[in-house]
C-alpha cells in the first residue's frame, strides 16, 4: 500500500517538471515497475541532467532503482544510499519516509555480510558488517548501540572460521584458527562470561597449540625450530586453559570442553589434571565402569 501511495506522489511531482524531465522520470518509473532495472537506471540517470534533479522524488526513485538492481552489489548500494541522502536534503519534511528507504538499503549491506559469511568469505563478511554499522550510524542513527549485534556477529564469524579451518592444513589452518580466536575475543571484550565465546576461544587456542605440534611432525623441522614450536604451543595451550575452565564451570557436562581440557593439560604435561579430565571422558563413554 505504501508503494502505491508513493507511486501517486511521483506521478504528481512529474507534472511539475518540464517535458523532457517528465519523460525520463516516467520511463524510469515504468521500467522500475516492470523490474527492468538496466533501463530504469539509464532513464533515471538521464533525468538527473534535467530540472528533475531538483526534485526529492527523483532521487528517491533513483535510490530504489539502484537498490533493486542488485542488492548484492555494494557499488549500486552506495549509489542508492547517496541518492536517498540527497532526497532527504531536498525534502526535509519527508525525512521519516526516506529514512525507511535508507534503512532498507542499509539492510542490504547487512545481507551482503550474511551472504559472504554463508560462502565462508569471512574477511569480506566482516568488512561488509563494519560498513553496515558505519553507514547506519552516519546516515540513520548515530546513537545506536551495536553491542548486541556485535556479539551475535563475531560469535557467528568465529564459528565460521572454525568451520573453514576443517578444509585446510599447515600454516593456513593456523592462520584461520587465529582469526577464529580473534573473533571470539571480540565477543569476550563485550561479554567476558559469554559461554559460546569461551568455548570457541578455548578450542581455537587448543587447536592452535596442537596444530603447531602436528605441523612440525609433517615436515623436516630443524631441532631448534622444534623447541621454539614447543614453546609456542605451550603459549597457546595456556591461552586456551582459562576459557575452557570458565566454560566447564558453566556447563560441566559438555564433552567437547572436557576433551579440550584433557588435550590442553596433556599438551602442558600436567598429568594430574589430564588424568582427571581423561577419566571424565572415559566415564562419559562408559569406559570406566
Amino acid at each position, binding site marked *: 500500500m505504501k508503494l502505491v501511495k508513493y507511486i501517486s506522489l511521483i506521478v504528481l511531482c512529474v507534472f511539475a517538471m518540464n517535458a523532457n524531465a517528465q519523460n525520463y522520470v516516467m520511463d524510469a518509473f515504468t521500467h522500475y515497475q516492470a523490474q527492468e532495472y538496466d533501463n530504469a537506471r539509464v532513464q533515471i540517470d538521464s533525468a538527473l541532467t534535467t530540472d528533475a534533479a531538483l526534485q526529492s522524488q527523483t532521487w528517491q526513485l533513483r535510490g530504489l532503482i539502484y537498490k533493486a538492481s542488485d542488492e548484492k552489489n555494494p557499488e549500486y548500494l552506495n549509489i542508492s544510499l547517496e541518492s536517498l541522502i540527497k532526497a532527504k536534503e531536498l525534502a526535509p519534511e519527508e525525512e521519516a519516509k526516506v529514512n525507511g528507504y535508507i534503512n532498507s538499503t542499509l*539492510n542490504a549491506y547487512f545481507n551482503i555480510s550474511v551472504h559472504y559469511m554463508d560462502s565462508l568469505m569471512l574477511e569480506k563478511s566482516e568488512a561488509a558488517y563494519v560498513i553496515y554499522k558505519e553507514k547506519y550510524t552516519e546516515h540513520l542513527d548515530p546513537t545506536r548501540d551495536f553491542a548486541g549485534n556485535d556479539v551475535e*556477529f563475531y560469535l557467528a564469524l568465529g564459528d565460521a572460521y*572454525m568451520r573453514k579451518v576443517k578444509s585446510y592444513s599447515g600454516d593456513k589452518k593456523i592462520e584461520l584458527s587465529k582469526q577464529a580466536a580473534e573473533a571470539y575475543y571480540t565477543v569476550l571484550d563485550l561479554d567476558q562470561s559469554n559461554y*559460546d565465546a569461551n568455548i570457541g576461544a578455548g578450542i581455537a587456542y587448543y587447536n592452535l597449540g596442537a596444530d603447531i*605440534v602436528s605441523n612440525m611432525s609433517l615436515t623436516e*623441522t630443524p*631441532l631448534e625450530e*622444534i623447541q621454539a614450536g614447543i614453546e609456542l604451543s605451550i603459549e597457546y595451550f595456556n591461552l586456551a586453559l582459562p576459557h575452557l575452565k570458565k566454560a566447564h564451570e558453566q556447563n560441566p557436562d559438555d564433552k567437547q570442553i572436557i*576433551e579440550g581440557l584433557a588435550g590442553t593439560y596433556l599438551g602442558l604435561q600436567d598429568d594430574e589434571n589430564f588424568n582427571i579430565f581423561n577419566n571424565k571422558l572415559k566415564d562419559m563413554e562408559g569406559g570406566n565402569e
Partner: protein
Amino acid sequence: MVFVLGAWTSGVNAPTQVRDTRSTLKALYVYTFATLIDWPDDYKKGNFVIGVYGSNDGVLNELKGKYNGKAIGSQEIEVVKYSSKTEMKKPNILYISEDKNSQLTSLTDSFKSKSTLMVTEKDGSLQKGADINFVLDGSKQTYEVNVKNTKKHKLVVASKLTSLAYKVIE
C-alpha cells in the same frame, strides 16, 4: 515495503578430540635424533630400524604413521614393536617406554657392545646407561644426553643435538 534481514549461522564449534601431542613430539624428536647422529658403517646397511619396547603405543603409532619408510641417509626407516628382549637384534634406535624402565640396566648390558641409541623417558635413566632421556623443563618436552654413553656405543652426535639439550653428561 518489507525488508528481509539475513541471519547468522551460529553456535557451531569445531568438534575437537584429545590429540596426543606428547607422543607426536617424542616421535618427532626420535626422528630428528636419527638425522643428527652418525652410526658406524655396519649399522648403515639394510633398513634403519627404530624399535619400541613397552606400552607407549602413542609413540609407536606416531613413528609408524609418520616416519616408517622415510629415509635416513640411504636407509629406509623400519619401525618395529618389540614384545620381548629376544626379538631385538641390532636396531639403530631402541625406544624404551617408562613401563619397561626397570629392565634398563639389563638392556644396556645386552647392548653395551652394540651401536644402538638407547632412548628412555624416565628420570635417572642416563645414569643407568641410556644415551638420551626425555625430560620436562616445566611444561616443555625436552631431552638430556649422556655423551659418555654415546661414545661407548660408537655413535657420533652432532654438536647441535648436545647444545640444545636440557642437560649433557660428558
